[in-house]
């Protein structure tokens, strides 16, 4: 089931991020729902599947954006892997722990994104990147998890995103 629903969810979240989430942006920053999905998927499935589905979701984002091919794939793969490090080590039933994990993983993934931007010669001042994008997105993603973790938890336990390991 996940093979079908995961890409559909990524597509839906990309659509939301490119449209209505702009109405709730704070200082030009909006939550990155795809990144949240990828990190939580890793948290529930482990590093290998986390990285794999992160890569798949990222490739989809790259295809839709039509920009730098691979930048989202590598970023989300890292995020999925980092999320997977929490599997078996952290308590899943607490939304506070999940939010903390998402904060850390978003921070790490956004740092990778920043480094990849340097590879393609896009320069953003490091202080602007940290205070204007990386930190606010990390907080915003953590807030989304605090509010919506129950939905994702149930979906993984018995809903659309459930199912065996690959």
């Amino acid at each position, binding site marked *: 089931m996940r093979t079908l629903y995961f890409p559909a969810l990524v597509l839906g979240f*990309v*659509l*939301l*991020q*490119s*449209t*209505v989430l*702009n*109405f709730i*942006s704070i*200082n*030009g*920053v*909006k939550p*990155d729902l*795809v990144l949240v999905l990828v990190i939580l998927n890793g948290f529930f499935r482990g590093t*290998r599947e986390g990285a794999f589905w992160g*890569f798949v979701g990222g490739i989809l*984002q790259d*295809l*839709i*954006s*039509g*920009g*730098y*091919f*691979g*930048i*989202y*794939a*590598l970023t989300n793969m890292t995020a999925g892997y980092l999320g997977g490090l929490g599997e078996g080590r952290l308590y899943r039933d607490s939304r506070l722990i999940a939010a903390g994990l998402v904060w850390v993983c978003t921070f790490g993934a956004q740092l990778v*994104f920043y480094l*990849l*931007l340097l*590879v*393609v*010669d*896009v*320069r*953003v*001042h490091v202080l*602007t*990147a940290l205070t*204007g*994008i990386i930190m606010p*997105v990390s907080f915003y993603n953590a807030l989304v998890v605090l509010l919506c973790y129950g939905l994702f938890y149930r979906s993984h336990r018995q809903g659309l995103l459930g199912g065996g390991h*690959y």
Partner: protein
Amino acid sequence: MSGLSLGKKLLLLGLLIIVTMTGLHYSAGGIERFTPLASSLRDILSPIQRGIMIAGREISDFVATPARLIGLSKRYRQLEEQNSQLESQLLQFKEISEENIRLKKMLDFSTGLTPQLATEAAAVTGRDHGNWFGSITINKGARQGINSNMAVITPAGLVGRVIRVSENTAEVLLITDPRSGVGSMVQETRSPGILEGVAGGQGNLIMVNIPADLTPDRGNRVITSGLDGSVFPKGIPIGTVREVRREEAGLFKMAEVEPYVDFNRLEEVLVVTSFKLETP
């Protein structure tokens, strides 16, 4: 996958990263058309995005304002647009007036530079889904005569330029994007400079390479310089100077610029399909 040894897994991962990095390297070269797959995806998604955007805007308005004040909110927006138009016209008149004074001083050389613009109106259907880049998608593309490097404006001022087109959509790089650079000048002091974006979603602009002897003052207006080869016509308003400071290298000054356009509330834009410099 589970049957592979650790070495082979690492080798596969390494190959995957190398292939992706290669893709990243080659796609960074400024492609002016989307790939066929990306183009089709965008053409399909554009009307859906437009629908979601309209619905989202309505809901946002409803939530933000008490129901009884919705009419007032719309009226306020109309007045705001009208005000932006009038401000823009005033700026253009001022630019023409200053130009006339300069030209009269130049021993009757009559080289009027009033740009003649042909524009195509387009609706904003979506924005970049990430937080790093500042770009918007509009519902006009190659089929409607839109090409790469066309300037995009609103009555309030400069928005950006078209960087990629599909059949029915185009991607516009906002001037707030860190990849953007616009030849500009300060209207009052005639100081030239390059206007750069700071970070995608934020409405901050920085004008760099301003000669130290032509330092602008706070509140001065910044317009496009329209130098030879520029994709932007001359005289389009961009914003006002907020703060001036010395560049790190010390030779030039730099200025923080507050844009006239509210990039978070863009709904319709005008694509400049052609412009010419009139020489009477």
